[in-house]
């Protein structure tokens, strides 16, 4: 059984306007997303800004209440728990945020940052608590005497390590990394990625890795979910997705990944236009306004996320994408 199961998760934001604040429109931020994460596995959720990937993470964490759908942790349904019961579940699901500067309280010492989740769940106190905090510092490879310092005394990468240590503190099983390395320098990014995958091997953590950076994702993920306008368009294991994408959007995203060789010949797929507004998503396939292979059926009939080959699901009416050189740019 999967550690985390997300079933048809939806998050809609009402827009109020007019004289009496009546609801005038709805933002379909996340519109029916389903996936599973097994213990010890990394699932990456990728997509461009505004596709709803962060909202998925926040809805699972109940930082925002999902509009519809189901979330199961180890078979227990957690999306409708009362705040008190949800608090108990939070011990197992933790989060690492994007901005290492605003994700730590400027007035708390590192020791207190790390001790807070342990105290919240009554896991340790006194000298045992000190030992646990020290062990966390070791795990994220920060010197133990840094515990007495305030967050502003650290660099971005070090702060992110503190953020990771906080997420590990209550002995969590699943960590949601919401763009956890996007704000860091390339070299620091690599360190944090390595740290995360080491921790995963060591502790058997499951990671839900939310990112817009496919190059980073390729390094640490087992499976990838590609989101577009609030829906998953492709869900596949890493190898199939990177070698043989089945959705035109995935292919366009992959072609945008920078390659370190300046002379490499590449077929870039430039998508035309902007992402449509999630207030009024296109009928039929949501990608049809920008898809190079669009045909009549795409405009009326919404494709389902179906298995195209073992371990690879895509929401596209095409069974095979045309050869890449045939793509009009």
């Amino acid at each position, binding site marked *: 059984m999967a550690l985390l199961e997300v079933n048809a998760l939806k998050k809609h934001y009402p827009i109020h306007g007019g004289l009496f604040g009546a609801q005038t429109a709805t933002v379909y931020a996340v519109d029916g997303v389903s996936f599973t994460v097994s213990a010890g596995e990394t699932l990456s959720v990728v997509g461009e800004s505004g596709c709803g990937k962060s909202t998925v993470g926040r809805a699972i964490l109940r930082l925002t209440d999902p509009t519809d759908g189901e979330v199961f942790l180890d078979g227990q349904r957690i999306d409708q728990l009362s705040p008190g019961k949800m*608090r108990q579940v*939070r011990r197992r699901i933790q989060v690492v*945020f994007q901005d290492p500067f605003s994700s730590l309280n400027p007035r708390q010492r590192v020791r207190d940052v790390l001790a807070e989740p342990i105290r919240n769940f009554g896991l340790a106190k006194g000298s045992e608590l000190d030992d646990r905090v020290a062990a966390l510092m070791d795990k994220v490879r920060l010197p133990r005497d840094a515990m007495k310092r305030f967050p502003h005394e650290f660099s971005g990468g070090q702060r992110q390590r503190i953020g990771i240590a906080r997420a590990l503190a*209550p002995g969590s099983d699943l960590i949601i990394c919401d763009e956890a390395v996007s704000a860091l320098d390339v070299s620091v990014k690599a360190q944090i990625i390595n740290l995360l995958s080491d921790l995963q091997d060591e502790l058997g953590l499951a990671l839900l890795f939310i990112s817009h950076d496919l190059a980073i994702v390729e390094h640490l993920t087992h499976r990838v979910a590609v989101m577009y306008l609030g829906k998953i368009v492709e869900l596949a294991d890493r190898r199939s997705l990177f070698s043989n994408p089945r959705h035109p959007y995935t292919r366009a995203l992959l072609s945008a990944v920078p390659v370190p060789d300046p002379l490499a010949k590449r077929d870039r797929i430039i998508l035309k236009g902007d992402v449509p507004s999630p207030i009024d998503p296109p009928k039929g396939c949501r990608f049809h306004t920008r898809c190079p292979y669009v045909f009549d059926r795409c405009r009326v009939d919404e494709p389902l996320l179906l298995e195209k080959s073992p371990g690879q699901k895509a929401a596209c009416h095409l069974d095979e994408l045309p050869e890449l050189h045939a793509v009009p740019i």
Partner: protein
Amino acid sequence: MSITYNGTGGVAADLPDVLPPVKKRGRVLTFIRRNPTLSAGGILLGLIVFMAIAAPILGTVDPTAIAPARRTRVPSALYWFGTDMLGRDVYSRTLYGARVSLIVGFAVAFLSSIIGMLIGVCAGYIRLVDTIIMRVMDGLMSIPSILLAIALMALTRGSVQNVVIAITVAEIPRVTRLVRGVVLSLREQPYVEAAVASGTRTPAVIFKHILPNTLAPIMVQATFICASAMITEAILSFIGAGTPPIIPSWGNIMAEGRALWQVKGYIVFFPAVFLSLTVLAVNLLGDGLRDMLDPRLAKRL
């Protein structure tokens, strides 16, 4: 012929002082140099507070002692600030009047900050309460605070305590608005969400993560409230709606000197100067505090 060695040929001459010598300043001097506004306000306010506390030993007489024989004397070596129309020593009255102004200023600043902070946190954190509280506060703010204070004083007996309450009620909405705004932006901060996600209970989130970060703007706002409360107290006393006439407050002294201000201007002049200096000191302190705590606050306050 012998070679003489004068002993200096191989040694380079002393280097000229390229860099000016490092001046060593004490901590206090460095602080004053970096925060001139704060220091000026602090020192001035310190002097006034000292003056108010030490009034009995600064050559004053009983500020309420009436002596009709020596009324309306001009300032002299004997009566530094002159005497009023009842023969009371204006110097003594002004020094004792500082006590009333400072007590009212600090008490109003303290009370309205505490109460405003509690209401503001509730409004910022509980959506349902927010609408109700903020409409009430909007209502209170739509009445000019001086009129509100006059109305409240009209309902009660004139005393320092009632003046403090009346001005506090008028100032609470400002603090509430400020705190609510800060809380609304703080609760979206990732570290607050991280605290929620790591199982921190709501009261702990408020007291550990939100309140400590609202203190800086509240402290700055408190100094401005302190200054405006002193002025409001003087206005209330001046129009006879504040402290009872028997208490020497700056507003009372000025109100009593008003009838004679064209012939005996000093009766109004001295308390007015002290009031202005005190308000200036508190405002300088607030400006300096704001710059020291957070330069970005300048736009918000």
